[in-house]
């Protein structure tokens, strides 16, 4: 009953952060060769890079994923604006193909490579060593890589703490139910290891400390499992007040379980708080519209993907030009129903990039 995490653009943050644990299943979308995203991407085997500015090559490994253009287009624009050519891989979820992409980049003598190792670091270690020897700057995407000169990572812990703070703020100031009777749910996904526990541990710790109540826990990173898990937990405790998902997809499932109860008056909207992490488009859309039924989908800890895209160009170029730090920690932004316009703006940006 494994969830093919990486195949789901719905699980944005996980896709980005958990390549190492979900890599094997990424081939599930490899057949989507004709995805719109890669159609205008410069093929990896195109002509040699412009000598004056140099070139940045990006191997995302799963170029047919729906979110890819949201990252790749801003990256390409940023590289261009700084006088660099931007090259893209076309592995589409295939481990061997990603190594080939990287070999091509080395042969073309690109200036820098940014790589998300979709099948873990082992398969790409030799080719990255070769690239290093050829004097190419190497940046890991979502995790540090061997021979790397730098890495783009996410502030998972800080982001989780910020989301927990928002939840606690709601509990303290807006929750209208009986605080003695407060109960909450945390969706986890332990099989992916640290990148996941970096999200769930701080949330569990902070909210437990603030409310004095330990969460019910269930495993979910998808809408349907999130719905089923909450339905079952509501049998155990019909007065659950809060659900925090390790990602938005699971939280959206919890929302689907609660929305009918709010609608038919079984539950009071002011006693309910649902939130997830990632900044998945559907979650942001819901927040932009006021949080859905009764406004209960209140927040998402969002990675701003176009910022991430710009970093894909900026970090290697900064390293090449000898400026700035070698590691870029991308922050999460807590997007809430208090500022639906912000959610709308992000969604609009994403939509314009995927058009």
């Amino acid at each position: 009953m494994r969830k093919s995490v990486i195949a789901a653009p719905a699980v944005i943050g996980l896709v980005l952060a958990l390549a190492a644990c979900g890599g094997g299943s990424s081939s599930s979308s490899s057949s989507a060769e004709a995805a719109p995203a890669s159609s205008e991407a410069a093929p990896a085997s195109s002509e040699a890079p412009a000598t004056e500015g140099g070139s940045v090559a990006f191997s995302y490994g799963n170029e047919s994923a729906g979110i890819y253009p949201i990252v790749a287009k801003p990256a390409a624009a940023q590289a261009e604006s700084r006088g660099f050519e931007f090259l893209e891989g076309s592995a589409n979820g295939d481990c061997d193909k990603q190594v080939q992409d990287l070999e091509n980049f080395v042969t073309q003598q690109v200036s820098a490579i940014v790589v998300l190792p979709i099948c873990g670091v082992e398969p790409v270690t030799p080719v990255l060593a070769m690239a290093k020897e050829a004097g190419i700057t190497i940046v890991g995407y979502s995790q540090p890589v061997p021979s790397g000169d730098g890495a783009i990572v996410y502030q998972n812990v800080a982001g989780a703490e910020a989301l927990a703070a928002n939840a606690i703020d709601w509990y303290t100031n807006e929750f209208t139910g009986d605080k003695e009777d407060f109960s909450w749910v945390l969706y986890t996904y332990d099989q992916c290891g640290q990148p996941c526990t970096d999200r769930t541990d701080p949330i569990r710790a902070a909210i437990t400390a603030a409310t004095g109540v330990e969460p019910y826990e269930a495993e979910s990173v998808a809408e349907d499992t999130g719905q089923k898990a909450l339905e079952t937990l509501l049998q155990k405790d019909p007065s659950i007040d809060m659900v925090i998902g390790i990602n938005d997809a699971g939280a959206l499932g919890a929302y689907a379980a609660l929305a009918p109860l709010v609608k038919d008056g079984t539950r009071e909207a002011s006693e309910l708080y649902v939130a997830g992490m990632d900044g998945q488009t559907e979650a942001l859309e819901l927040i932009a519209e006021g949080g859905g039924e009764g406004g209960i989908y209140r927040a998402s800890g969002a990675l701003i993907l176009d910022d991430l895209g710009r970093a894909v160009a900026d970090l290697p170029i900064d390293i090449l030009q000898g400026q700035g730090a070698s590691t870029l920690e991308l922050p999460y932004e807590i997007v809430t129903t208090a500022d639906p316009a912000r959610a709308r703006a992000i969604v609009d940006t994403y939509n314009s990039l995927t058009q």
Partner: protein
Amino acid sequence: MSTTQAFTGVGIEAEPLRQRLPLWLLRNGIVVALLVEILFFWSQSEKFMTVSNIRLVFLQVAIVGIIAVPVAFLLMSGYIDFSMGSVLGFTAAIIGMTLDGGSSVLVAIGAGILAGAAVGALQGAMSTKLTFSPIIVTLGFFVGVQGLTFVITDGKMRSGFPEAFTAIGQGRTLGIPNPVLIMLAVFALGWIVHTRTRWGRYTVALGVNAEAAHRAGISKTRIPFWIYVAVGVASAVAGLIAASRLDATPPTLGDGTEIEVLAAVLLGGVSFGGGRGSLIGVLAGVLFIGLLNNGLILLGAPPFWVRVSSGVALVVAAGLTALAIYIEKKKQGTST
């Protein structure tokens, strides 16, 4: 061999219950396991045996149960399918996009079911008439159809469907959730077809001894082809229910469903390689997994235990089936 005695006429009665029951229980060990499971959770949690919880478990297993019926036939006939989850997601996506485009609920449902039937027919034709390896064909569809779902949806979820649509999955008739009624109807139909019609008989015959069935004039490909179509249609109905219940069609919908379905069917005593199995066992298998997930959450077991115990249950089921076959063989040996 001891037929030297005088001819006395052929019996027409079934063997006495006391001879058949042990064999039936051996083959349907899952029914006993299900009872034990229910008693266990009942003794451990007072929330377990409540009307609303049992109703919920039936509701939650409806999707797996609906697909499990034709898949049981498929295994009985000696074939296999791994693509049900992908087809579920694909048909749900088609329904979601059709509704999103402003079509009526009936048109959307029709489009989804037609798509499911078409995918089933394609796999069926390849696996039976064209004699491709069913394992490879359906694994290919498992991957390919999932990819296709992302292509047609652009990876985007559709949501906010008309009430007439969400009522299918969320509504109740006579107090029973509609998906449960649909599942029970599918099981009843499956049971009738399996035990009362020639088609069920031919399915079993093909699985037990395809050559003998062929020599009796039964086509080796015709029935399995239509079972593949039925699996596609059932996956579409399950996709329709999932989309209606969620009021959304995420492109990942249905991920992992194929494993749950196969686990339930195998737990139910249907074996790979064909022939064996009953629909009652399959229903018990479906409920066993549903109650396991439900009960462990109610007990507050750590999430990974749900997966560990599903795995253990499956391995135990495989052992039970092997034991049943062993004991039957032994009995047979002594009777000749």
